């Protein structure tokens, strides 16, 4: 499999937080959702992947090139969207085209204008007159106008209303139609990732908990609803996490079919990205 992004053993130590051997890979032609609660290390990982912060150790390969030795070439071929608009309020989309046209070698002013028209953004309108959704769309237009092969999005859909989010997700799905492209999108809005992500990487307290295909996860994992005393009956190696509530217990199991075969009396619900996140963040280990 060809990978668009490959992060290996990435470490970054702060006095109160650390990224601990973060490793994952995004195949070409795929969207990877990077999930985790606030403060889990999503943005820190993305910053380290872009050399916005200095790594203590680990390697980052993007489009088959090492970030340290080919930083400029890589950045020429990726588009980045952050959680907030980084353009000053007094600029207009036309100004941004002039600025970025002098920075990216492959900047395509016409393509940028096409995106602006598609998103309904006036070229001569000042950014201060834009809503948050419009600013995000502007950021995406700017990220796409130099025809990148990889998009890296850090909470790009947070704080947007569902309609704008839906529109933006459609753009990402369009982008990925070309099998050479890939997207890494960090978000804690799991419903968005349920719609578009092919792979999920979950980070918790600076450590990668899992990185796998979303369908594979949804297909294998399940949530067993049972009484607190029934947990003991479930095979220990099947239990990932459990949560107690006033009605009994919910248990996240590794292989719902195997559990169903052994315990046909148990009710097993399908999992969602959100429920997986909740189990890992707030559930208990046996």
């Amino acid at each position, binding site marked *: 499999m060809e990978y668009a992004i490959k992060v290996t053993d990435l470490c970054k130590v702060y006095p109160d937080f650390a990224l601990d051997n973060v490793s994952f890979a995004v195949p070409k032609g795929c969207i990877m959702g990077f999930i985790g609660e606030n403060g889990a290390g999503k943005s820190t990982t993305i910053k380290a992947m*872009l050399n916005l*912060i*200095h790594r203590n150790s680990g390697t980052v390969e993007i489009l088959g090139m090492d970030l340290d030795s080919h930083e400029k070439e890589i*950045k020429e071929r990726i588009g980045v969207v952050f959680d907030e608009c980084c353009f000053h*309020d007094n600029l207009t989309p036309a100004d941004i085209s002039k*600025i970025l046209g*002098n*920075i990216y*070698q492959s900047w395509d002013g016409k393509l940028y204008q096409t995106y602006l028209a598609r998103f309904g953004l006036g070229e001569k309108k000042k950014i201060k007159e834009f809503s948050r959704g419009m600013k995000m769309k502007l950021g995406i237009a700017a990220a796409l106008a130099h025809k990148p092969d990889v998009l890296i999005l850090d909470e790009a859909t947070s704080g947007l209303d569902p309609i704008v989010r839906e529109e933006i997700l459609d753009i990402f799905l369009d982008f990925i139609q070309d099998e050479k492209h890939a997207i890494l999108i960090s978000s804690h809005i799991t419903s968005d990732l349920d719609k578009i992500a092919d792979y999920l990487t979950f980070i918790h307290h600076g450590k990668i908990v899992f990185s796998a295909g979303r369908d594979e996860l949804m297909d294998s994992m399940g949530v067993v609803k049972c009484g607190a005393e029934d947990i003991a009956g479930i095979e220990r190696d099947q239990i990932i996490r459990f949560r107690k509530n006033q009605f009994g217990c919910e248990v996240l199991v590794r292989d719902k079919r195997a559990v169903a075969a052994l315990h046909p009396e148990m009710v097993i619900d399908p999992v969602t990205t959100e429920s997986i996140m909740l189990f890992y963040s707030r559930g208990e280990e046996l």
Partner: protein
Amino acid sequence: MNGLLLKDWIYLRPAIGMMAVVIVVCMVLFVPWGVSSVAFLVATAMVLLLPVNAMALDTSSRWERYALALPLSRREILAARYVFSCLCLGAAALVCGAAAVGSVVFLNGYDLLGVSPLVWWTGCVGAALLMLDLMLAVYFVYRMNVGILLFLVLCFAPIAAVYWRHLLISEMLGVWAGIFAVLGLSGLWVSWRVALRAFERWDVS
């Protein structure tokens, strides 16, 4: 780097236009009356506001985080800031220099304290360059709002002038102008080295 220079130009175009008008008005008001030093002081102090504004705007819009994700090295980002600041000061120095030469050639002019306008020009531009060196280095090392620093220095300068008035004699002004010019020029290299070292180590927050 051209893109970054263009960004600063677009950001600050209205302010630059307004400053150009003020500087020209000052020249017209003061130079023919033999007090070109006032126009030079106003011009250089105003021009120092441009990099301060550019840095404040970059900080408020979190531009540097975005710039570091663009195909630009940290050295290029820093160089663009230095080049833009020096271009602003250079443009002001050219205008003031032309006024100083004009004052000497056509008006046979002597400025305050009977000193040639060329001495005042050298001193003002040198002091402004020294201040610029300091501001850029402080910004990139401590990431602080250097507007406050500029304000403090501008407030302190007249007080210092009164306190050390015995040093402001016409014979000494030439020496001071030379010292400022040398310190300003050599300080630019020191400032660049210090800022580059800090910026290359800087982690985006």
